[in-house]
């Protein structure tokens, strides 16, 4: 249950359908960089519900062939240039979505149902790009009531970085409940944790409601600083500048991997 970083990276082979959280929601950058070091190929990413540096790094390094997302951006630091370049070159397939459709897809998977209905979205051209989303007439209403159905999303692996984990494999996520949904929806959850919690997280009534139980967790590795470089504004600024070109990107990533 408690393993290490190399073991986590080994559990994400080429071609994996990999779910990752938003940059503000606890991504595991340590494993991300390890996947790049190992030259993984053919990963299919699905973001919960958006991404930034993490997706841009994997795309720039040629690890990704497909991504389902509601948006990719470096926020204040600018556009995700490697994502934009890959989109322009047609080297990745992009399944464009909207945030709540991704949340609902994961929720359908955790409920074990094939789809969930969702309000809104009507009138958006996203419907034209998503033949897998269906508009039906609410079968329970007397009046016409069109509603969108989105299919369940069942990732093979959910990967994230959490503040705490205990020796039993329980992981504390606090208010980031979408990480629990992500783990429930995925076949396996792989987690890096900032710190080891000395007892059992489920025994503490204040910690338990924010805890993802070991039942859903395949492996936990203690990796202090596992969300670096997201935690360092100067590294982010450096990345945004370097990633404007593929060569600048490659140089910086080489530095991050070996420096």
């Amino acid at each position, binding site marked *: 249950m408690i393993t290490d970083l190399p073991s986590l990276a080994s559990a994400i082979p080429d071609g994996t359908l990999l779910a990752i959280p*938003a940059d*503000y*929601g606890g991504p595991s950058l340590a494993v991300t960089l390890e996947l790049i070091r190992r030259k993984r190929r053919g990963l299919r990413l699905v973001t*919960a*519900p*958006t991404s930034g540096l993490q997706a841009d790094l994997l795309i720039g390094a040629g690890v990704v062939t497909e991504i389902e*997302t*509601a*948006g*990719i*951006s470096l*926020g*204040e630091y600018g*556009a*995700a240039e490697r*994502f*934009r370049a890959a*989109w*322009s070159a047609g080297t990745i397939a992009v399944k*464009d*979505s*909207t*945030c*709540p*459709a991704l*949340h*609902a897809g994961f*929720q359908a998977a955790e409920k074990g149902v094939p789809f969930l209905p*969702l*309000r*809104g*979205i*009507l*009138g*958006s*051209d*996203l419907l034209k790009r998503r033949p897998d989303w269906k508009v039906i007439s609410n079968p329970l209403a007397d009046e016409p009531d069109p509603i969108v159905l989105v299919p369940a999303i069942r990732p093979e692996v959910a990967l994230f970085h959490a503040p705490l984990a205990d020796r039993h494999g329980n992981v504390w996520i606090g*208010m*980031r*409940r*979408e*990480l*629990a*949904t992500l783990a429930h929806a995925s076949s396996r959850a792989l987690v890096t944790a900032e710190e080891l919690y000395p007892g059992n997280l489920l025994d503490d009534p204040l910690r338990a409601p924010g805890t993802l139980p070991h039942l859903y967790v395949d492996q936990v590795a203690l990796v202090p600083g596992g969300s670096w470089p997201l935690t360092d*504004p100067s590294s982010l600024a450096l990345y945004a500048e370097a990633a404007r070109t593929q060569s600048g990107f490659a140089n910086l990533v080489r530095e991050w991997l070996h420096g």
Partner: protein
Amino acid sequence: MADPRLLAALLADAVAGSRTIAVGSNSPIPAAAALLAQRRRPETTISILGSSRHNPFPDGGRELFDFAAQGRLDAFFLGGGQIDGAGNVNLLQAGGIRFPGSYGSAYLMPLVPNIVLFREEHSRRVLVPRVEFISAAGRPRRLVTGRAVFGGGEDGFVLLSAHPGETEESIRAATGFAFATAPGFGPSPTPPPEELAWLRGPIADELAQPYPRFAQILRGSHA
């Protein structure tokens, strides 16, 4: 460049009276506006994506969207790579250029009563007759840009006010869609000194965590 403090105040005007206001991705000026709206009306609840302090949704990322589908969310801000005269926004792509993506717009635009569109760049490149891709369709209540404020209505946008240095003619020249001019059209109101001090001080401090770069701009004395 318009003063971000003026823009934040105009966006706060646009959500006046809202009990619940949410701010999404990449939205520093709307985040400042939400904080200002809360200072004007302390019982207002605000949600700022990425802020650890202003997150009233402990049940995870989906909660805001469920809250909105029930009709509980009063106001939300949306941007646009392109915005058209019908109020459609395009956050996906135009002219072979990729934008970040549609985020929650497709869903929230039809569900939130007070949708406020905001884009600092006011040009014919952004404000177009017809967007290339409809990320979200709906009825925005207001459109605020770096040059002007428009009201939204059944028949498209109505010019309400223009910022310092702009005229009805200069706005018309920079706008790619047709619009009417409100009978009371005039200069955009500037915020009172007390509010400027809030924006430079406590509001900038609160934004330093989700938007460190913008917080510095807000504190600055330029414009």
